[in-house]
């Protein structure tokens, strides 16, 4: 199960070794060449000598994590977030630390011992620690090194009516879409790019876009979805089950209108549902790619994911399948010359 293999692999920003190995194994045999760049981004070339626009499909393989920065005398580990993590989601969550995936739990003062004013406020990062069951500092540092990174220990599972839960659907869902898309052939030069360090500032995409100089780029992203109780229509971001979402404006990008209209046309022609990402906050790799060199046209296609950056994220498998169809349809229309750059 592709989504299970990809979401359960470790790969916090800057520490993408495991997920990169998993992805490389998934795409090998389906692409002409696979290599990594200096930052560790995995680049897959497919038919790059073919005529037509050079297309870069991007999905970031890194995920948010927690970096171990200090061991207390009693063996408890202090940490700092790597990427945007809301400290309020952390208490009592199980994590896996470092390449050996050592188990830990994020601990805090139990409610019995909290003063009334402490109970009213969310626990700040400074009051949290990771407990790996170590006796003391030396024991802890024999098992975990400072600089090791932890990720949530969540397993992939299909739940309810056509949904799935896992850690890191942001953006392993996008990685899975890109992996499936790369298994087919297209009559245009195609670069499938699994980038690093997106969660800490779109860093991998900057170097990858500069290297590849695409004519057209599309970022495939797991994006914010808050279609829950009490959220007004304009506060939802996206809605689960209504299909892949196009970005109009986010924190780093104003949509390229011509390419946006092209993608809408493709979705409608192929009968694929779509929606708009209706929130300004957040961003994705296209925010870096479109500013590369002389500027790059393109856009982003996002899969709605509830509770991104949190331990258990929820996604609609139908949205996922429709995103695969949409990206394939966009490539098909591009190879037919459907977009005049």
């Amino acid at each position, binding site marked *: 199960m592709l989504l299970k293999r990809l979401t359960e692999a470790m790969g916090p920003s800057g520490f993408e070794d495991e997920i990169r190995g998993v992805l490389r194994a998934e795409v090998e045999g389906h692409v002409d060449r696979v290599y990594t760049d200096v930052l560790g981004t995995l680049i897959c070339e497919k038919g790059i000598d073919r005529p037509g626009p050079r297309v870069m499909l991007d999905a970031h393989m890194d995920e948010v994590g927690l970096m171990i920065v200090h061991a207390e005398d009693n063996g408890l580990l202090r940490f700092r977030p790597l990427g945007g993590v809301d400290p309020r989601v952390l208490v009592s969550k199980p994590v896996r630390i470092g390449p050996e995936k050592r188990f830990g739990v994020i601990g805090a003062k139990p409610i019995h011992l909290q003063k009334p004013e402490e109970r009213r406020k969310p626990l700040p990062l400074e009051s949290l620690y990771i407990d790996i069951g170590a006796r003391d500092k030396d024991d802890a540092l024999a098992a975990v090194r400072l600089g090791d990174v932890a990720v949530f220990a969540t397993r992939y599972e299909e739940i309810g009516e056509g949904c799935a839960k896992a850690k890191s659907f942001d953006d392993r869902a996008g990685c899975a879409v890109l992996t499936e898309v790369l298994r087919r052939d297209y009559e245009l030069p195609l670069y499938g790019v699994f980038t690093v360090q997106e969660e800490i500032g779109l860093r991998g995409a900057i170097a990858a876009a500069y290297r590849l100089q695409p004519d057209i780029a599309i970022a495939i992203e797991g994006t914010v979805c808050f279609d829950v109780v009490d959220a007004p229509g304009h506060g939802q971001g996206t809605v689960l089950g209504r299909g892949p979402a196009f970005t109009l404006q986010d924190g*780093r990008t104003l949509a390229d209108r011509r390419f946006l209209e092209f993608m809408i046309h493709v979705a409608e022609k192929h009968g694929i549902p779509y929606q708009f990402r209706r929130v300004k906050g957040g961003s994705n790799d296209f925010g870096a790619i479109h500013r590369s060199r002389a500027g790059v046209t393109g856009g982003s296609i996002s899969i709605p994911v509830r509770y991104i950056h949190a331990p258990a994220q929820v996604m609609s498998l139908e949205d996922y399948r429709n995103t695969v169809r949409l990206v394939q349809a966009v490539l098909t229309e591009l190879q037919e010359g459907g977009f005049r750059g």
Partner: protein
Amino acid sequence: MKERILEWAGYVAPSGSEGGLQEALLGAVREAADEVRVDVLGNGIATKRGEGPHVVLVAHADEPGVMAIHVDERGFLRLISIGDVPAHELVGRQVRFTNGVTGIIGVEGKVKREDIGFEHLYADIGAESEEEARSRVPLGTAGVVWEPLSEIGTHRLAGRALDNRAGCAVAAEAFLQLAALGRRVSVVFSAQQAVGARGAGTAAFQLNPDLAIVIDAAPAGDMPEAPRMALSLGKGPCVKIMDGTAVVPLDVKDHLVESARRLGLAIQYEVWPRGLSDAGAVQLSQGGVKVGGVSYPARRLGGLAQVIDLRDVAGAVRLVVEAARSW
């Protein structure tokens, strides 16, 4: 100059929707240029081949604005900002979208003035249903808060988008004069400045200038109890020393000051530590670009309407031409 500024400030051109304005801007320089284009990010670029180093004049064309992001079942539009727009100042104002549709911005009840955010605002475009609103203003349509333009006093203009249509007028006029002198010169009417100088860097990458001069507004501080800023209307164009994006190299700054001295032109010095301009994006393009800045003071910069002095604008043209000619 005045006619051009007034005409161009009449265009609705929020970041990312500069297309209509670019046609007008490039129309003013097309005859004098060897090559004219609008690039991927929406920059309008004109180049004239000629003598000397390649000097690139950069003036952003865009302005902050709003974007329709949601329509409710009664046909009210919800908005997000494009760039930095003060939400509480929008209540009761007129919004004008790029497709000409206008509306009035309202605010939900029970929100205190100081707490007003974009999530509390809506635009009433007179639609009687969700469908009507969607067809008239498709999601993603951008607009601006409309504010009339007027000539006030003897030398001054007041209104929306003077930042930076006045700069576009300076850049266009300086380009025409330098082209007539046979100089090698380009003008960039940059896109997407108000959302973080996204266009200027890619334009500089294409042109690889020997010298770039960024022309933009700088905040005046000569109003009652104004935030402290040593720039006044009518006292001449400003030579940029530094802003929040770039420190101008000394040789470029000295050259601009010396050019003004040769012209006998009074100038002011712009030191604006938190100011955002295209200068930094241009400077860090390619392997690094020599960048300078010539600004004109503007009152209420960052508000919905600005006040500028046409004498500062005219002085900016003279300074840019002299500095570019003699670089």
